[in-house]
């Protein structure tokens, strides 16, 4: 296991994650269009919409119920998770190389990411 091979593995995992996320978003999109194809849309004024789930729990529940919003949000969450996973895997990779400086560096980045995402939980 060296730098290059580790990174190739990480890259492939990321692509798989993106594809899975896209599949879920696509499913949500399909549900959305089936239900709302003819609805008039107006995105001119930003206002946080009450119906859209924004907490992790709300998103999971909505997705499990096959609601379009929940499914799409779940796919988006999975997409957002891919770079976070990349950083987490880098922490592990540096650990395996016994590179303590970079275990710390990447752990700091991971902490910032987790902090940011916990705000949405």
């Amino acid at each position, binding site marked *: 296991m060296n730098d290059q091979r580790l990174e*190739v593995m990480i890259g492939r995992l990321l692509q798989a994650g993106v594809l899975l996320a*896209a599949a879920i*978003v696509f499913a949500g999109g399909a549900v959305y269009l089936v239900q709302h194809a*003819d609805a008039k*849309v107006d995105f001119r004024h930003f206002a946080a919409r009450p119906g859209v789930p924004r907490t992790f729990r709300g998103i999971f529940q909505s997705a499990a119920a096959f609601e379009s919003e929940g499914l799409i949000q779940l796919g988006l969450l999975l997409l957002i998770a891919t770079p976070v996973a990349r950083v987490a895997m880098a922490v592990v990779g540096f650990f395996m190389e016994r590179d303590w400086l970079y275990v710390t560096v990447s752990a700091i980045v991971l902490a910032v990411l987790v902090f940011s995402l916990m705000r949405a939980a």
Partner: protein
Amino acid sequence: MTALVFTFVVVVVSAVAGFLGALTGLGGGVVVIPALTLALGVDMKIAMGASLVSVIATSSGAAAAYVREGFSNIRIGMFLEIATTVGAVAGAFLAGRFSTHVLAVIFGLVLIQSAWQTVAGDHAATRASSSDKLASRLRLGGEYPVEGEKRAYGVRNVPAGFGIMFGAGALSGLLGIGSGAVKVIAMDRAMKIPFKVSTTTSNFMIGVTAAASAGVYLSHGFIDPRVAMPVMLGVLGGALLGSRALVHAPVRTLRIVFAVVIGALAIEMIVSGIGGKV
């Protein structure tokens, strides 16, 4: 317009954005945000949320391709990401505070810089073959393939690069863009890192930076599923096609056309922002 028409139009526009982005290295917000706000009347904050999603999609989607070539430097990326992620969280908080008009003007200014950057030339004249003291201690240097063999390179001016990266992160969080162009400038010009290493490392970084803003954007409600969905799917599809076309594309010509187009969009964004129309 109806949801169906809107979704279809956004998918097509996003596919173009993804396609051009894969070819020129500029993408995501640069095309998506003006298209959504100016052409489709979408509120700037919702456009920013959708753009952020597209940045992550292109970064992670292209990840395997960049790594396999052996250019990107994960240590440089990780170290600088400390600055960009903190900047991104700060920028994302500010985005909730500024009005859309202000954001539109700032975005327009950033677009002008991007347009300039696209044609003004890529490379710094000098390359560092060895690292300075701080960079050596941080082991930031590496090797990259040049004509079949590995050439070593060093890194310089780490504090300056770090500072610029904080700014790049803040812009990313503030506007929902990738700030890839700024990151490449910081690495290529300030830190004297070889261009291809800079661009590939930037591609890895923009996804991480965008993820740092994403949590804040989600909690503010900037990410609207009905807009983010077609943007994400369109950009992914377009980027996939674009990276295939890369071998045959007249990249130089494309960049010039691209720069002219986004220059014009930049002016429109600024005017609309000042005029209160965005």
